[in-house]
Each structure stands twice: as C-alpha cells, then as structure tokens.
C-alpha cells in the first residue's frame, strides 16, 4: 500500500476514524495500530509478516529476560541472540545472494568454474528499517538506558507502526515506545501540521521525484547516448529524485503519525542547503546516521581515540552505511567517497563548523553560497555511484561526464515535460529555502502567513500535484533498501 495511492487514503481515513473513536483507551488504540500496521504491511506480501512477528517476538522476549538477568555473561548472550536473529534475517534476505555472487566472481577470476547457488528471493519491504528499530530497543535495554516493555501489544505496535514501517524514519525505542505507553489526546494543531507535512511530502514524491526519475533513468540507463552536460544534469535529476522520494516519504510518515498523536523525529533537514559534507550528514537521513553514530561509531571509540582509530571508525561507519543501502559494491564506493570527503573535516576539527541553518541571521554570505554549491556538486557526483547499477555503469557515466566533445550539447526534446519539471523544481527549492528553519518545508507558513494566503498556497500545491504528478504505480526508492 503506497502512501501515494487511493488505497492508502481510504485506509488512513478508516483507521483515523476508528482510532479516535476509542477515547481514553490507549491500549485498545495500540491494538488497532498493531492490526492496521499488519494490514498495511500485508497489503504488499502477507507472507513476510511472519518476519516482523518473529523479530517482534524475539526482541520482546530477549528484552524481558534482560530485565531480569544481572549476570553480565548471560546478558551478553541474550544480546547476541537478538543480534544474531535480526542481523541473520537481514543478512539472509538482503545479502546472501550478493555474497554468493561475489565469491563466485572471485573464484571465476582465479579460473575456477562455480555455479552460484543464489536464492533470487524478493527482499521483504522495510526489513532494513524495522530490523534496526528493534535492534535499538534491545541494545538500549542491554545498556540499561531503557526499561523493557511489558506490554507485547505496545511493543508490537512500536515495531510495526505503519507510518514509518517500510521506509523509516528509524525510530529509537527511547523516543517512540514510551508514546505507546500513555494516553494520546487529539491535538488539532499537531494534526493540521501533520496534514501540511503530508501534503508537502506528497508533492515532493509524485511531482518532483517521479518526474525527475524519467530523466535520471534515461541518462543512467544509456549514458553513452548523452553529452557531458546532459549527464551532469542527470546526476542533479537523480539528486532531486532521491531527495524528493525519500524525504517525501519521511514527511508523509511523520505527518501521518501526527494525525494519531505521535511525534516522530525529523529525518531530513534540508540537506542540499549544507555547506560541507559534515553538515550534509547531519541533515540527510538523520535517523540512520544517528543510529550508526550511537550504536557503531561511539562504541568503537568515536572521535575520542587515536587519529588512526578515528580514521578507521569513520571508514567503518560510512562503508557500513553504504552497505546498509544495498548489496552492491556501488553503495560501498558511495560510502567511501563520503568518508573521504568527511575525514579531512573531522581530522581538522572543522566537522561541527556549521550547526545552524544557512543564513540563520539573514541573507547568506557569498562564501556560504559557494560552499553550498560545492557541497551539492560533490554529493551529486557521489550519487552517480549510488544510482549506477554496477561499478562498470558508474565508470561509463563518469567517462561520459568527462568526454569533452560536444560536452555542452543539451537536448530535452525526447523527454516528456521538461519545462513543467523545471518549474516544479524551482518551486520546491523556493519553498524549502524559505521554510528551512522549520521541521518541514511548509511549517513556517503557519507562523508567517495569514490563513487566506496559507490556504491559497495549499490549494496551489494540490493543483500542482494534480496537474503534474506522474500517474502510475511508481514505488519509493527506499523500499528496496
């Protein structure tokens, strides 16, 4: 069930009505959320529901046991059970074929003939997200920073909470789980902001991401057919596609959660307005980068160890982050590129130079513009590895980018609707720029615009969606991760 589908609209209205028709009975509301989440997930493939159920059961049982056991060795053993089960499922479904194929290729390179025993199974939607979510719970209970949840329904609802189940944000148990353990009251202001955020997320997905995808798909599919300038624009189109797609999903997820009285963490904070890579990573997929920071980087010693270990830790976190996105060397290289850009800032003590938003106190200065542009260019070049289907394809793309014969030839005549796409991109950038101090693009409208202007703006966005959305069953990129 996609957020941008009629099915979901009907589902949401029904669940919303039922949910708030159960006043002052949060335990029943939890049960409804759990049932609705399983229906939501089962809409794709009910068979994979069993994975969520297994993951929920194991982590609930492990955490309950951790609450009773004091012996450090037994506690470690219990944590190992959770890690093995969750990472085992993830590894099996997501990485098994990749490792088999990689080993086969390696042996073939040495002259051996091996028939790869791959499974060719479909990746269960959202497995990377809910696995990390449940892991955070078990680890927090192990570290005694969180008490084990006693209510299985509340815990099940936390693991499978439908707004963010399949593509995040990856919610920490310490933030979301307590919200399942208390009375939720309907907050009209929060609900209105939720609808506002959903509207903006929908626009970014169906207008920006899906239209940019046409250009990016063509250029990444057949790079040799386009000039260098077209390929440069292709990388920009993909940058906008993945941002619109993923941040759009996050906005819709956070907005939906607000309708039910839940507060999820911000997942994107206008990352393309960053002035260096460090700032970019504080603003891009925040729930994942902070997860890796808290559960991988800091346990490894973080930045408070020798320089050699800082370098090691940085490479580990970026490479693992790349690998989390998919079983392909392209993602690993993407992580590596970011690590190489991040390390000089970290080692030079400049990684926390830009903590506020650009132009916090007024119009940005010229060097900030230049830094923002430079960061965007680096990010776009790194996206080439992320988007390319193989390292060979990425090589072809870079080859085209640096072939200077007729480099500047730009021709969009074979593409549908380049003018409308360009205009919608400009609109999105302007809205996000003026809204960059908020949690999402439209949040500041509430504070700065009178009702009439605000409502006019919403109608205009609805109109843009209706006129320029790309029609069809177009899924979200991050469903594959």
């Amino acid at each position, binding site marked *: 069930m996609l957020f941008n589908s009629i099915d979901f609209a009907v589902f949401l209205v029904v669940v919303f009505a039922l949910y708030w028709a159960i006043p002052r009975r949060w335990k029943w509301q939890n049960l409804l959320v759990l049932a609705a989440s399983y229906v939501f997930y089962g809409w794709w493939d009910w068979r994979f529901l069993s994975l969520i159920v297994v993951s929920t059961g194991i982590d609930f049982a492990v955490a309950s046991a951790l609450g009773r056991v004091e012996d450090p060795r037994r506690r470690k053993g219990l944590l190992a059970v959770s890690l093995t089960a969750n990472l085992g499922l993830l590894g099996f479904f997501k990485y098994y074929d990749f490792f088999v194929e990689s080993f086969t290729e390696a042996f073939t390179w040495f002259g051996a003939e091996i028939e790869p025993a791959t499974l060719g199974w479909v990746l269960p939607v959202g497995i990377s997200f809910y696995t990390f979510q449940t892991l955070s719970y078990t680890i927090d209970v192990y570290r005694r920073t969180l008490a084990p949840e006693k209510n299985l329904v509340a815990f099940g609802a936390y693991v499978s909470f439908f707004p963010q189940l399949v593509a995040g944000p990856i919610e920490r148990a310490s933030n979301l789980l307590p919200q399942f353990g208390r009375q939720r009251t309907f907050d009209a202001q929060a*609900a209105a902001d939720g609808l506002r955020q959903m509207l903006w997320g929908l626009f970014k997905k169906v207008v920006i991401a899906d239209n940019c995808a046409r250009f990016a798909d063509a250029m990444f599919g057949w790079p040799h057919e386009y000039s260098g300038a077209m390929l440069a624009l292709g990388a920009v189109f993909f940058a906008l596609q993945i941002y619109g797609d993923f941040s759009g999903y996050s906005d819709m997820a956070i907005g939906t959660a607000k309708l039910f009285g839940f507060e999820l963490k911000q997942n994107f904070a206008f990352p393309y307005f960053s002035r260096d890579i460090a700032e970019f990573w504080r603003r891009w997929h925040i729930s994942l980068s902070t997860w890796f920071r808290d559960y991988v980087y800091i346990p490894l010693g973080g930045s408070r160890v020798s320089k050699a270990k800082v370098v090691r830790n940085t490479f580990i976190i970026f490479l693992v982050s790349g690998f989390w996105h998919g079983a392909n060397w392209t993602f690993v290289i993407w992580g590596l590129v970011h690590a190489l850009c991040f390390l000089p800032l970290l080692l030079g003590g400049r990684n926390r130079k830009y903590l506020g938003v650009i132009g916090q106190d007024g119009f940005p200065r010229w060097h900030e513009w230049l830094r923002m542009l430079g960061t965007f260019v680096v990010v776009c070049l790194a996206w080439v590895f992320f988007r390319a289907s193989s390292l060979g394809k990425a090589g072809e793309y870079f080859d085209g980018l640096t072939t200077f014969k007729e480099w500047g030839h730009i021709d969009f005549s074979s593409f549908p609707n380049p003018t409308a796409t360009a205009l919608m991109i400009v609109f999105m950038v302007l809205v996000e720029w003026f809204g960059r101090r908020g949690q999402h693009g439209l949040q500041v409208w509430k504070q700065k615009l009178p009702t009439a202007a605000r409502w006019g703006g919403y109608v205009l966005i609805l*109109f843009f969606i209706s006129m320029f959305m790309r029609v069809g069953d177009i899924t979200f990129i991050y469903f594959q991760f």
Partner: protein
Amino acid sequence: MGGFLKRLAGFALVALLGYSVLLLVYGANQPHALRSNLKYKLGSYGFMHSRMQEVKTRHDLDVLFVGSSHAYRGFDTRPYTAAGLNVFNMGSSSQSPIQTRMLLQRYMDQLSPRLVVLEVAPEMMTFGGQESAVGVISNDKLDRHVWQMASDVDHLMVWNTLWYTGIRQGLGLDDDFAEPLTRGNETYIPGGYTEKALLFNSPKSYPTKAYTIEPLQKQALQDILDLCAQHGAGVLFVQTPLASGFRDSFTNNAEMDSLFATYTTYINYNGRLALSDSLDFYDDRHLNQNGVAKLNAALLPVVQEVLN
C-alpha cells in the same frame, strides 16, 4: 476534534472552489510547453466536435461505424451512401472498446442501427483508453455514461478533463464554438469520415513486440455485443489494414485474430487486399485515400450481404 473536522471541511470547500478556478484559468491558457494531466481537446484531431454535433441529427441508420482513427479515416461513408445506405461513422482518435461502449450506450436508442461495424485494432485492446476518453469528454455533453467511462478508465488526466469540461459547459463557454470543416490537409465529410489529401508512406522498421490485452477492454467488447443484441443490431468486427512491416512486428497477431473471432463475425483485411505499404498508406497505421477506396470496395458488398 470537532473544530478540526469543521476546519478541514471548510478547507475542502475552499480547495474545491480554488481548484476549479485554477483549473479554468490554467486550462484556458495552457502553455504548449507544459504538458499536464489536463487535455481538453475541443475540436481536436479528426473533427470529433463536428462528428458529435452531426450524430445528434441522425436516426434509423443502416450501418454505424465505430472504432479508432482507423475507423474514421478508413470507413469512407460516401460509397455506402451512394449505394442507398443510411450510414454514420462515429470513430474517434484512439477509441478503444471502453469509449465505444460509452458512445453506444449514449446513442444506440437514437441511431438504432441495423448493423454496427466495429473496427477492432489490436493496439486499442492494449490501451487504458485515456487519450480517446479525453477526446470524447471534451467534445460532447456530460452524462452518466461519461462518468461510467471515466471511472472505468480511472486516470487523473481523464478526471481533470471531465471536471474542466463540466465547468466550461456549466458556464456556457463553448456554446459558440464552431469547428472549421477543413483543417490543414484534412476535411470533414458529412457522415463522419475524415478525408486526408493524398499522401504516401515511407515504411519504417520496428522492434518485435507483442500485444498485451487490457482485461477491461475485453469486458467492454463483450458489453458492446450485449448492447447491440439488446437493440437488435448485428455486429461485424473489422480489422483495417496496417503496413506490413508494422503489422509483422507483433508476434501474436494470430492470437488476436483468434480472440476477435470468438466474439462475432470478424474480418481481418490484412492480407486480403492487394495493398502497397508505400502507395496505399500515408503512415504505417493508416490507409491513404487509395487504400481507403480499396478497403471500402471490398467491405461494401459484405455489409450489403449482412443487411440483406
């Protein structure tokens, strides 16, 4: 909660009005460079507006031709009229069975044809039917049959065009519209046929592919047969010729022939007529006037025989 829902309802009302105003302004001034989910095609390809105006004046037909551009550019009504038959061609661009069904639902009572000749283009069986739906919606009155067709096609472009047409018709903005009967090298012939100045074809090559049938189109074909049976009209399925290179690029032509033949009497004129891909077509899908003459010379006796 009550206040929130009231405010939401208020916004929904404002959004409905605002959206309608934006639609009207945008639709009236739609820049060519901005392709969007609105396609208002009043008096567009193939003189659909003129055809829809004329059909309202016709009654008690012997033969009604329906189908895509192959129909309104292929079934020249003049030889049939000369043979003493009362005929009308209600084809429209990319008309798929879903639109044919809607048009028949609307006009069968009035036209009461003895025979319906349905041009069955395999390609139309593969479409969702959006293109034709917006052509039909833009050029005729809106009624419950149009709503049914729009819900069958269920495409944002169709819903927007329906809404926009409704606003325009409600405000009477198109009441004075008159479509010129000659546009470029095309002329509307009373009776529904569109004649194109004689042009010749440069055949192209195509990659091989197969038709993939839309289930809704199959259902619509069956509904058409049922509708005609209810009105006592005979039905003849006809596939008009395609340039051989284009036709042969599809790997499942025989399967499509078998499918059409399961419904009713079906004649595929591909291979039955001595046609040149260059001299009897103006493109790989459409006959030129030479080819049209050959097709109708062959079809007229068949029609006469069925009617007798």
